[in-house]
């Protein structure tokens, strides 16, 4: 009897051990490597929380989070792709997707996300050769920031906001005429990767295009481009403080600039640093009515060499869903989620400034998704430098720029 009991106990223990072992083997562990750029202490813990929540809900998945910095992140990603050590999921800037997709380094996710396209904004940079390679995550656009105190001092109604170029020019000139160290407009110096972003809103608002619709011609030089550059140069030459973006923002916050073009990071700074400035945000004016702005953003892509594409896509859809994008934007005070449902949340619509960004996003363009963008960007900036800072003739400079873009894109 005694032996029977011992035997029964041993049998139960053995069965339990077998069950527990088989349970472990059933949970096939999938490890996803994710490289991302949000390292700011304000948002880092939120990203980590999203990851932890996902791991809890999906015990078979482990996410290896790696932080990248904007100073060398691009180099690291290029090296990883070319050495075959790319992560499963990688965050890419909007103008990088074409570079990697054209080199066959990203997984084609068209079939898996086609049903999601209607619910999200900003797909165009993620599409190359009619295939989708990256999922839009957090986007960003630029709006006009106006110092209302300077508007009052300039003799205008404090509620005045310009809706077209003539009004913008008038506003900037009047603020500039206050004199002293006050300037009407904040114009970017020849700062790489920044200058063109300030000109393109004017260019696009005038219906300018860099490449023709059929993608076969460079059409950067046009009467529209001429008109836009003439307008921008008028602001630059007659009523602007010319400096780097960060110093322009400092000057705006110090009440030395009436009008600047900036992004949601400036809103965040004003809020976090409790800067006592009476300002308003509004849509960037166009020739006759509110025009267009420059938009970019963060995209999530799956490496072509990933062995866990299905899991990676599932995770991307989780990170970009309404709740996580809202959580992200609320924590980081970001204004432009890619998820349309999230963008209509009261968090954005109840905040007059965030609402401006949401509206502006619907009237924004992103740069063309071409692998040679880095060269084209360089040509546009050189053209702007020539015209704005060396007083080169506008038409001739645009023509020269167009010729260079044609050579880069079409080797003609």
């Amino acid at each position, binding site marked *: 009897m005694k032996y029977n009991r011992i035997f029964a106990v041993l049998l139960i223990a053995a069965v339990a051990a077998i069950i527990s072992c088989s349970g472990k083997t059933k949970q096939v562990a999938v490890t996803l490597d994710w490289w991302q750029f949000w390292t700011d202490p304000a948002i880092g813990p939120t990203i980590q929380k999203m990851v932890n929540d996902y791991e809890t809900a999906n015990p078979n998945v482990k996410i290896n989070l790696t932080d990248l910095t904007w100073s060398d992140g691009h180099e690291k990603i290029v090296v990883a792709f070319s050495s075959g050590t790319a992560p499963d999921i990688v965050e890419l800037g909007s103008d990088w997707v074409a570079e990697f997709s054209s*080199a066959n380094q990203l997984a084609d996710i068209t079939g898996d996300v086609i049903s999601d396209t209607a619910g999200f904004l900003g797909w165009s940079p993620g599409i190359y050769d009619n295939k989708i390679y990256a999922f839009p995550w957090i986007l960003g656009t630029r709006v006009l920031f106006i110092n209302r105190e300077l508007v009052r001092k300039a003799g205008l109604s404090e509620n005045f906001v310009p809706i077209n170029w003539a009004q913008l020019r008038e506003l900037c000139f009047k603020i500039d005429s206050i004199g002293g160290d006050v300037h009407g407009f904040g114009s970017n110096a*020849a700062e*790489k990767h920044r200058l063109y972003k300030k000109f393109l809103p004017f260019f696009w608002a005038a219906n300018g295009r860099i490449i023709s619709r059929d993608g076969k011609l460079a059409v950067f030089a046009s009467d529209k481009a001429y008109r836009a550059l003439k307008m921008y140069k008028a602001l630059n030459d007659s009523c602007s403080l*010319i400096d780097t973006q960060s110093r322009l923002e400092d000057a705006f916050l110090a009440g030395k600039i009436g009008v600047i073009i900036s992004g949601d990071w400036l809103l965040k700074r004003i809020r976090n640093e409790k800067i006592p400035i009476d300002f308003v945000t509004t849509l960037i004016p166009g020739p006759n009515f509110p025009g267009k702005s420059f938009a970019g953003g963060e995209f999530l892509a799956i490496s072509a060499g990933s062995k866990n594409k299905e899991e990676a896509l599932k995770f991307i859809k989780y990170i970009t869903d309404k709740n996580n994008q809202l959580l992200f934007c609320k924590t980081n005070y970001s204004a432009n989620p890619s998820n349309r449902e999230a963008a209509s949340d009261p968090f954005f619509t109840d905040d007059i400034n965030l609402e401006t960004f949401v509206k502006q996003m619907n009237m924004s363009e992103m740069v063309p998704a071409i692998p040679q963008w880095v060269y084209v960007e360089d040509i546009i900036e050189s053209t702007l430098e020539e015209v704005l800072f060396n007083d080169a003739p506008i038409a001739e400079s645009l023509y020269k720029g167009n010729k260079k873009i044609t050579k880069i894109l079409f080797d003609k």
Partner: protein
Amino acid sequence: MKPRQIAGYLFASPWVITFLIFWLFPLLFSFYLGFTDYRLLKPTYSWVGLDNFAALLSDQAFLQSLKNTFVFVIGTIPLTTMISLILALLIDKNFPGRTIFRSGYFMPSITSMVVIALIFTNLYSRDGYIYLLAKMVGLSPPENGFLLSNKTALLSVMAMDVWMSVGYYMLLFLAGLKSIPGELYETADVAGAGPIRKFVSITLPLLKPVALFIIVINTIKSFQVFVEVLVMTRGNYDTSTAVYFIYESGLSRFEFGYASAAAYILFLIIAIFSLAQFGLLRQRVTP
């Protein structure tokens, strides 16, 4: 092989292996790459012969960066050499607080270039002290600051480089001055030579080996100017230099073939300059 020899090779091996892997191989491989169209992310690459070199010689951006580099070299080396020699002569005298001056002049040489470049970026800006000082003394500096103007940006970077380098070269000159035997000056005194005569006939000829060393290493260093440009202007406002061009081509656009070809053109220029300097100055140094 004798055990003693084996031990010698073993002791030398850490350096030799490191040299082969991290210096010699990249050096030879990059030379090879200069003749290819190699780009990161491009799955294959092919031999293009001298195409990269030909393209570089008609690339306006490269030619402009070479021109800027020459301006930098020609503008900074004579000034740095002269100022450091003058400082060395002054510091060589006995006067109270000499050590403080010596340390003070040398301090920039041991400070990070990035830190100095950031400080000078602020000093040169529209509300920086150098800018305000220039205005105060009646000069008319560029409206948006020294670094935001084609006319003054490169000159400003050069001025900072001179300020930063003189302390180090001053110490080298000082060492050279200390090695001149005092008896020569005593003899000159007896012969009735004045201070200028002593400087021209004793100090200067005997400092020539040090001057040669300073000019050659400063030339090589100046041809490779990069960090200042990266931190202060990112190559804007006509300040792009040859190494900055190589950095942009190689690490921003990942055109390793093109960047390698540019690096070898620069290597050739530095080699020619250094050999010419050795040739010219050695004749005068050798008694």
